[in-house]
């Protein structure tokens, strides 16, 4: 009898506690809803209205904005151009940050004099403003007084000099390298955390078994850090497909030269907030671009999560 009563009380307490969970979550949910969910839904609603000029859209037009975006010149051309630029940008940044970040983290994790200082310094660029970084690199790459070309000349590599930010072939990769440099510290931080999480005994056992540094990376570090690669890639994906600041700082909202550095972020800003003679398409079209951007990022994140989760499961099964 007493036992039953205790069971009942404990079940009531558990229920009470469980009902408290949403209440604790409420503040977060309300803030998230007000500042994220509602604006996203509002933007989706706007995309079904006319967006001529700068005034708020008022006339319902159904899917007309989307039809124009996917079928009509110049909307389609600008949108597809930004999409492929974004894909290229993402691939370059992913490659640099994952490969260089991984090996830098492996290097820093070794015990040597000053490795702690190096760890901290590697994170410094992350703390800088993207606009400041963009402006500084623009100055360094300036063909008239930039230091970069001067260094190439000094090294007798003058034949390599290009109009880095003025050529359609070099501008996007150069900006991708700049942003990779800035956020490298974050990738290193993730990989360092992953390496720190690996059991020391496993590494020592490998050394005793005669594993060299390459074998250690191949058979222990790389498989253990696979989930981290996933997280870093997903963060880069989200960051790059919503990237705006660096393009604004180094290539203006027009994605100079001739839209070759135009990403979704700069496209959205330009078409939504600028007047027609400066490349604006109106609020409704801008909302349509934002909605498609949201869907691409949403589907992309689910895709990457699926890929890395499947890979993780397979590895677990293999183990």
């Amino acid at each position, binding site marked *: 009898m007493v036992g039953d009563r205790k069971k009942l009380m404990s079940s009531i307490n558990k229920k009470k506690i469980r009902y408290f969970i949403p209440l604790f*979550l409420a503040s977060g949910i309300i803030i998230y809803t007000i500042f994220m969910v509602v604006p996203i839904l509002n933007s989706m609603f706007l995309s079904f209205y006319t967006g001529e000029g700068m005034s708020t859209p008022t006339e319902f037009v159904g899917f007309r904005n989307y039809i124009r975006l996917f079928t009509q010149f110049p909307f389609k051309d600008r949108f597809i151009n930004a999409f492929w630029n974004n894909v290229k940008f993402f691939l370059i940044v992913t490659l640099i940050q994952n490969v260089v970040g991984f090996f830098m983290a492996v290097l820093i994790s070794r015990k040597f004099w000053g490795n702690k200082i190096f760890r901290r310094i590697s994170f410094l660029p992350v703390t800088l403003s993207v606009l400041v970084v963009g402006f500084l690199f623009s100055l360094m790459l300036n063909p008239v007084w930039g230091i970069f070309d001067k260094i190439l000349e000094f090294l007798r590599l003058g034949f390599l000099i290009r109009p880095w930010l003025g050529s359609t072939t070099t501008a996007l990769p150069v900006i991708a390298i700049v942003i990779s440099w800035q956020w490298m510290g974050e990738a290193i931080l993730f990989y360092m955390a992953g390496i720190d999480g690996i059991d020391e005994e496993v590494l020592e056992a490998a050394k005793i078994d005669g594993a060299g540094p390459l074998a250690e990376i191949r058979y222990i570090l790389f498989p253990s850090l696979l989930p981290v690669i996933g997280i870093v890639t997903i963060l880069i994906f989200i960051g790059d497909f919503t990237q705006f600041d660096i393009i604004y700082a180094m290539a203006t909202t027009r994605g100079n030269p001739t839209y070759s550095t135009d990403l979704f972020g700069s496209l959205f800003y330009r078409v939504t907030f600028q007047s027609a003679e400066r490349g604006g398409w109106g609020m409704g079209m801008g909302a349509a671009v934002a909605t498609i951007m949201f869907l691409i990022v949403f589907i992309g994140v689910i895709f990457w999560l699926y890929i890395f989760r499947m890979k993780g499961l397979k590895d677990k099964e293999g183990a």
Partner: protein
Amino acid sequence: MKKSLLWLLIVLLSVSMVATFSLAGCKEKTAEEEAVAEEEAAEAVPEGEQVTIKLTSWRTEDIERMNRINAVFMEENPDIIVDFQPIKDTEYDAQLTSSLETGVGADIIWLRSFDPGELIYNGGYISELNDVIPELADFPSAAINAWASDDGVIYGVPIAGVTHGVFYLGDIFEQYGLEEPATWAEFIDLCQTLKDNGETVFAQGTGDGWPLYEVIYSGLGANFYGGEASRQALMAGDMRLTDEPFVDAFKAVDELQQFFPSGYEAINYVAMQQMFGTRQAAMFIGGSWEIGIFRDAELDDLGWFAPPVENEGDTLQYCFHVDMGVGINKASKNYDAALRYLKWTSTPEFAQLFMENLPGFFSYTPNPTGEYILEDDVALDNLNAASGADLTVRTVWERMSRQEPSGNGMMEEALIKMYTDVLTPEEAAALVQDALNTWYEPFME
């Protein structure tokens, strides 16, 4: 259990969404109510009490200069405080519209010429001025036209226009015994002389497209395509950009590419100004609004010449672009004070002050008491070039840039591609024309 948790979460989510939307609705209503209440309050303000009116423009660089001008107004009108609050050029249009929509717009608004300004008027945000400022009837019609609707409603006081031409460093010209060229052939010879002597001829780049279109093509190209007459014919659909005169203009300005500095593809507008301001090039093709900047850079030997004509004896086709108009916010809480300021902007006193403080911006205000005094000799050269010239504005600015693909944007793209050898002058002209053919009605007939 899980189901009830889920329901709770859904309820929370819905409540917060409904609350947000309702709050947004309430905000609008409250703003409206507040506007009415404050309007009533403003009317009730006894005479002699100070009111503050807010001015906004897209020129953040003018804060000090505008404050000097406004100080004169405030001295004459001690009951009004004028607060100049400009917004960064690239964000001006968006921020202005948002502020007007939400009822917090400035009292006095700087308006761009033609379509962007008309868009604000069509939105119902600014007042008609025909009856309240009758002096506007005396302004040149070309200027009034830039801030008036097709049915003759004037919604902006034209306060300034800008011109385009070629700045040069007098010392370098003197060093090689060069004189200001009058014809295009002389201009090209002069460029060649400078290049042969190892000088950087132009501080010009293609990093930004707008100077190529607004300054180089519209400024220097107008002499080749036939200026205002051809621009009007183009606007009416009687000419195309692919017609010979316009293509000739593309070809002429393309000739200058050989004199651009090394790496010009990556030189943007700011770098161009810095190059010339630090004497790293002999010439700079620019606009009159840059006089103040070069004066600040202490270029004492600054010289200027008008766009060279094609053949000797030709009339100069001078791009004297309508740049700044000023309108009054219909919903201004201090309407009377704002109107008093607006009326002041149409007086010769304001015009004189404006030209004094902002060298390179030229007023349209008629001056019945005599000539305006310009102390800056380069500004005076810019203004004097207009006498005897045929005046025009930027090639596809009016009507043809009303929507996407806009004439302005396409011109910028075409010229960058031409200067980076992606397109020939003929192809560049065709790129713009084809884009306009998709929506500009006179070209669709």
